């Protein structure tokens, strides 16, 4: 196989990953590293570099469509970005000293968790009725458009959300993914944001988080143009197509299937990490 053929295959693989990732809400980035390492034998460092680039592309591409709907909470997002960017830089630095087999095992665990999280039902539980002191000082409470007009909501547990976001940033920096599943945990579960708000705010944050670690990866020489080119264009094209189709699609079965694939990839990454397939 020459570079031309590899580029074509990577483009098609990334196109499918981006398409399924955006249809199911898991994001295309989560399967890029397993696809490149397990599928094409690419070194995991190059794979993480290419994956980060695709994460920025999909986040910015999707955000352009999201912001019009007015769901995202810019203040919550910007405040938490302090945690994710510090985490992302720290993660990208730490990644250079971690054994590759450890990166693969952590990656596997995160894939398993992402698969689990995507199958949980996300209900819009009523948020707290009492204002939270810190959230009030930080002017985080907001409102979002619903069919019955603007619906106000309150935000709570800012310190817990902030710590979880730091973790999301570290994982993003170490693994080259968007860490959407951990961001949802921080905003849905801890801070009690309505899920439409947390989804769009999380997407809006993912690009900034990934940009923070991408700078470190680029400077360190982990981003190869020959790999990043088909992966970025493929994931971007696939996710834009997926987002367009999302309006009328029944995604429940697809989500179960894709989550199963993600979980299996997670197990395989862990297995390969344990048997030492990822060596320097």
């Amino acid at each position, binding site marked *: 196989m020459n570079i031309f053929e590899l580029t074509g295959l990577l483009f098609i693989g990334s196109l499918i990953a981006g398409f399924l990732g955006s249809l199911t809400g898991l994001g295309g980035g989560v399967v890029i590293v397993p696809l490149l390492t397990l599928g094409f034998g690419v070194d995991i460092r190059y794979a993480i570099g290419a994956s980060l680039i695709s994460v920025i592309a999909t986040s910015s591409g999707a955000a352009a469509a999201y912001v019009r709907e007015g769901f995202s909470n*810019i203040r919550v997002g910007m405040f938490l970005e302090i945690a994710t960017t510090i985490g992302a830089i720290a993660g990208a630095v730490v990644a250079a000293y971690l054994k590759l087999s450890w990166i693969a095992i952590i990656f596997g665990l995160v894939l398993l968790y992402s698969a689990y999280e995507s199958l949980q039902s996300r209900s819009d539980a009523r948020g707290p009725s009492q204002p939270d002191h810190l959230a009030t000082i930080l002017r985080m409470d907001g409102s979002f458009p619903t069919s019955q007009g603007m619906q106000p909501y309150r935000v709570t547990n800012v310190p817990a959300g902030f710590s979880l976001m730091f973790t999301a940033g570290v994982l993003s920096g170490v693994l080259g993914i968007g860490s959407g599943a951990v961001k949802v945990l921080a905003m849905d579960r801890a801070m009690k944001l309505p899920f439409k708000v947390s989804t769009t705010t999380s997407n809006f944050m993912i*690009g900034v988080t990934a940009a923070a670690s991408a700078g470190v990866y680029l400077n360190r020489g982990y981003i190869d143009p020959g790999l990043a080119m088909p992966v970025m264009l493929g994931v971007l094209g696939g996710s834009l197509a997926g987002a367009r189709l999302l309006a009328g699609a029944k995604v429940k079965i697809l989500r179960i299937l894709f989550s199963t694939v993600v979980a299996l990839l997670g197990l395989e990454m862990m297995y390969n990490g344990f048997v030492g397939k990822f060596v320097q």
Partner: protein
Amino acid sequence: MSTINAPAQPMSDKRAEEIIGILLRTGVTIAAIVVFAAGIPYLIQHGSAKPDYHIFRSEPDHLRHISGIVKSSIALDPAAIIQLGILILIATPVARVAFSVFAFAEERDWMYVIVTLIVLALLLFSLSATNL
């Protein structure tokens, strides 16, 4: 401090978000076009070679630092132009954060001007620090 409980001003936020949407779309589109346009000569140059991505060797200097990427792009090196497209892509969320500084300043929300400046400083640090 009287504005502390006031909800974010919706009109101003709305306009800022529209501009952010246009900014993001433009950035991604330009990046994709640059990467695609450079990808064709890249494949003509390297397409028939055998890939060796299973061996990790760090990218050469002119493909990993902003100054080298710009210099080699001017010399029309396709690999460097792909990296330039990737730099534009990385710069897109950075530009979004930079724009938000002005949007918050216009709302006179100084606390969030500072929050956003911290995020911007972290991003610029990660892009420029060459020895992390």
